[in-house]
């Protein structure tokens, strides 16, 4: 896709509410998503997946599939041309299962046929002889029972990250404990996994795919194909949402293998059910917390054990554990900390990146604890948080000093001062929990208000070499100056193409002729250097920084040219000199690993805060919840594009609402019970209430324009705020999210508090 916008620098620069340039194609249906790609001679791919969460493979007979008319290839692990394992951080995942399967849905064989239905039937015709074995499905058992079968290559521990600060005293004036659980959430992007691989004349392959990070895909695909990287060229196709689920590979290697084998383009499109098995999910978590405080509610210590179920393969579990540990006490000042965060291998579905990873789970638990503490101290939930809030200069659990504004206490006060919505004494059924499906007249409806606070690391942490690359070219096209911005950064809906063009306008605005120039953001592909991932709320920061740096370099070149040819404007200079092009890599300041024994270290680049207040109506008889209003205060450092930013806060809050009340992949004995939108519920337009937003701009001096990543923080704090509001309305303890109707309606008679 090529995005072109026209206008003047000031009204289309950084900070302006510029409409997204891809909006036109999106409203006309012409935007080409990966699932819309079509070539006349293409074949269709299909995947045979394991029905067992854990089994030996004794035999695979592809004969019946190969014999079917219209089938062009049937491949197993024996056909993988290069390395047979891949992975984001660690190559532990087979391209196709080798002798065993470790989760339900693991790819075993792939097929290419001339019709999608033929491909599916051929996949079904492959005969696999499995010998099922015991599935490890309890992460605590996987970690702590020495007799438990081993799922991972060296055991069941993916990572253990302790945090040790001060000396945790045996007790305190006020002590509250809790055990909390977070269910397995699915990213449920609306456009399932898909892509088109096209064999190239040089023996390589071109892959058009919806992904979050083209270069990390390329880095993983090329070795599996036994090809040098320059023969595996990727271009971003339209992405129908991501939220972390496109950070790991899905159909990429499979499509390329089939294209190379058949010499024909091969397209894969997963259906919704397959999509539930086709990507990693949010780690379910079991967490035990103990908070000790003074009678005045000042935290003395926090002890926590956080167990994250990573499922059958490693994916990004180590980073998820790192986040849960380093952010495990939340944005509060605590002198004594004892945290153990673990990631486990099990035979459950693999888990990896989802918006806010690691931080979301911990936030739910520590915020639930802060509410318990408030009650134990007889304090208001806002007051207890204010009394312990971090601010600039505070030390995090890792010892890292927060070196940019972190006005949490003020944010909480502002949030609490926002007007509350009116009570729902409306006779309109639609205003009641359950909406038009209500069977009462609202006799059991109770209102509750709850607060949540979250802190999220922005960009990649723990010493990762996190950078982005941008190429900016200024040239005359049709005698008009034109600015071309080229990066490999994935637009996944967050509005990155808009922001890249805005930055180019701002940085090149002072060149009079360029202020009104056309700006085109070129399609993302691997012909330019890596942009890193569209995850960790990092692209505005890192790719934004790269685009700015390349623009500054272009500006300086033009200034030097102008000094050589005084009197010529930019357009005349370009005419005389030809195009000016500069490529720059941008790195944020380095981060450092966490100490493996104490968790200490400046592991994060930037920390971002968001606070939520939720107002809910709960029908305590029926267990139905209606979120009446969500209010949020978020500090983004600098607003780059107001509507796009608000969209991120709405969307992040909606996914947090989903986790609080609706969304859970139900897994029993390693098997997914609800792989459909009938049984896996995501918030509809009726579930998502109006939002009241206050967006602060306290700049981070280390970041481009002072910005702070914004996509994830609202996903953290919305969940505990809603859970707290439901507890306030129902009087129940509700330690687990999502809170299901039966958790409320069928709760034991004596309320837990």
């Amino acid at each position, binding site marked *: 896709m090529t995005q072109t916008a026209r206008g003047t620098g000031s009204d289309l620069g950084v900070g302006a509410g510029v409409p997204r340039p891809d909006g036109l194609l999106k409203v006309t249906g012409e935007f080409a998503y990966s699932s819309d790609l079509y070539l006349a001679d293409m074949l269709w791919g299909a995947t045979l997946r394991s029905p067992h969460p854990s089994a030996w493979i004794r035999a695979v007979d592809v004969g019946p599939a190969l014999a079917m008319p219209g089938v062009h290839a049937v491949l197993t692990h024996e056909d993988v041309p290069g390395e047979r394992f891949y992975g984001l951080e660690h190559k532990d995942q087979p391209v196709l299962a080798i002798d065993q399967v470790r989760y339900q849905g693991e790819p075993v064989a792939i097929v290419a046929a001339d019709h999608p239905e033929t491909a599916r039937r051929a996949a079904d015709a492959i005969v696999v002889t499995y010998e099922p074995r015991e599935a490890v499905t309890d992460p605590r058992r996987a970690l702590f029972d020495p007799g438990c079968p081993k799922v991972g290559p060296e055991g069941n521990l993916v990572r253990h990250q302790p945090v040790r600060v001060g000396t945790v005293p045996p007790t305190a004036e006020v002590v509250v404990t809790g055990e909390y659980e977070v269910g397995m959430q699915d990213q449920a992007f609306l456009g*399932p996994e898909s892509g088109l691989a096209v064999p190239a004349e040089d023996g390589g392959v071109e892959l058009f795919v919806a992904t979050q990070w083209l270069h990390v895909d390329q880095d993983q695909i090329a070795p599996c194909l036994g090809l040098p990287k320059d023969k595996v060229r990727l271009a971003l196709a339209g992405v129908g949402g991501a939220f972390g689920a496109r950070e790991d590979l899905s159909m990429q290697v499979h499509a390329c293998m089939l294209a190379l084998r058949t010499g024909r383009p091969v397209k894969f*499109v997963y259906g919704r059910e397959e999509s539930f098995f086709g990507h990693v999910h949010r780690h379910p978590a079991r967490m035990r917390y103990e908070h000790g405080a003074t009678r005045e509610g000042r935290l003395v210590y926090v002890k926590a054990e956080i167990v994250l179920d990573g499922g059958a393969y490693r994916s990004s579990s180590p980073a998820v554990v790192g986040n849960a540990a380093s952010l495990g006490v939340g944005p509060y000042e605590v002198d004594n900390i004892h945290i153990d965060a673990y990631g486990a291998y099990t035979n459950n579905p693999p888990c990896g990146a989802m918006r806010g990873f690691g931080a979301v789970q911990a936030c739910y638990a520590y915020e639930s604890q802060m509410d318990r503490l408030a009650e134990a101290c007889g304090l208001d939930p806002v007051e207890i948080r204010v009394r312990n809030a971090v601010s600039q200069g505070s030390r995090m659990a890792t010892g890292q000093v927060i070196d940019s504004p972190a006005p949490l206490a003020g944010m909480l006060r502002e949030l609490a001062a926002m007007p509350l919505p009116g009570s729902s004494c409306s006779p309109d059924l639609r205003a009641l929990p359950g909406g*038009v499906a209500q069977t009462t007249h609202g006799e059991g409806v109770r209102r509750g208000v709850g607060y949540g606070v979250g802190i999220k690391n922005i960009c990649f942490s723990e010493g990762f070499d996190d950078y982005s690359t941008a190429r900016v070219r200024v040239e005359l096209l049709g005698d008009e100056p034109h600015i071309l911005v080229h990066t490999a950064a994935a637009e996944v809906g967050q509005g990155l193409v808009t922001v890249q063009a805005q930055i180019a306008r701002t940085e090149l605005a002072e060149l009079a002729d360029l202020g009104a120039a056309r700006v085109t953001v070129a399609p993302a592909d691997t012909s330019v250097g890596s942009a890193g991932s569209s995850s960790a709320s990092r692209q505005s920061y890192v790719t934004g920084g790269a685009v700015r740096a390349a623009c500054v370099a272009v500006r300086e070149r033009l200034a030097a040219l102008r000094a050589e040819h005084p009197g010529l404007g930019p357009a005349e200079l370009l005419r005389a000199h030809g195009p000016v092009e500069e490529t720059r890599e941008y790195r944020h300041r380095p981060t450092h690993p966490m100490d493996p024994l104490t968790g200490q270290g400046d592991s994060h680049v930037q920390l971002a805060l968001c606070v939520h207040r939720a107002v809910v109506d709960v029908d305590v008889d029926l267990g139905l919840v209606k979120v009446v209003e969500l209010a949020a205060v978020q500090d983004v450092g600098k607003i780059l594009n107001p509507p796009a930013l608000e969209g991120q806060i709405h969307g992040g809050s909606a996914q947090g609402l989903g986790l609080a009340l609706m969304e859970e992949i139900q897994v029993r004995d390693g098997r997914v019970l609800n792989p459909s939108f009938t049984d896996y519920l995501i918030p509809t337009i009726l579930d*998502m209430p109006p939002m009241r937003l206050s967006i602060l701009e306290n700049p981070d001096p280390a970041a481009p324009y002072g910005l702070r990543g914004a996509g994830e923080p609202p996903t953290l704090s919305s969940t505990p705020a809603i859970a707290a509001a439901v507890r306030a309305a129902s009087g129940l303890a509700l330690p687990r999210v999502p809170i299901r109707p039966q958790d409320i309606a069928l709760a034991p008679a004596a309320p837990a508090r």
Partner: protein
Amino acid sequence: MTAFEVNGRKVDLEVDPRESLLAVLQDRLHLYGTKKGCDHGQCGACTVHLDGRRVVSCLTLASQVEGREVRTIEGVAGEDGTLHPLQRAFIDNDAMQCGYCTPGQIMSGLACIAEGHTGDDDEIREYMSGNLCRCGAYVGIVAAIRQVAGPAEA
């Protein structure tokens, strides 16, 4: 042969009795503007108009549309490319992020307005509740429909 109209153009196709309208639109007519989010009637991404009424094309059999008029997102803008006011309103109100739900939202939104279900914003929400948006662009979607439907009833 099954004969029907798509966006004012006559189509005459041999369709399999099991083939959905969505499959025919995408795989046979290469009209990919209509999106598949679930293929089971759960998400609304595949919403099109059949004789002016909204249907989910994934649950509509192609053989059922014999002699009828189908309108898809490709048929919403004017012949000359002029956007329909609702398309414009979706851009103005940033009523999308990834945009994958957008064609279905617009087809549903057009029907919602035509059906007169825009009395207040709650009514818009009620009648747009069959269209999921995972990106959470719901605020903009309501605002876009409101912009075209005119002010809410008092």
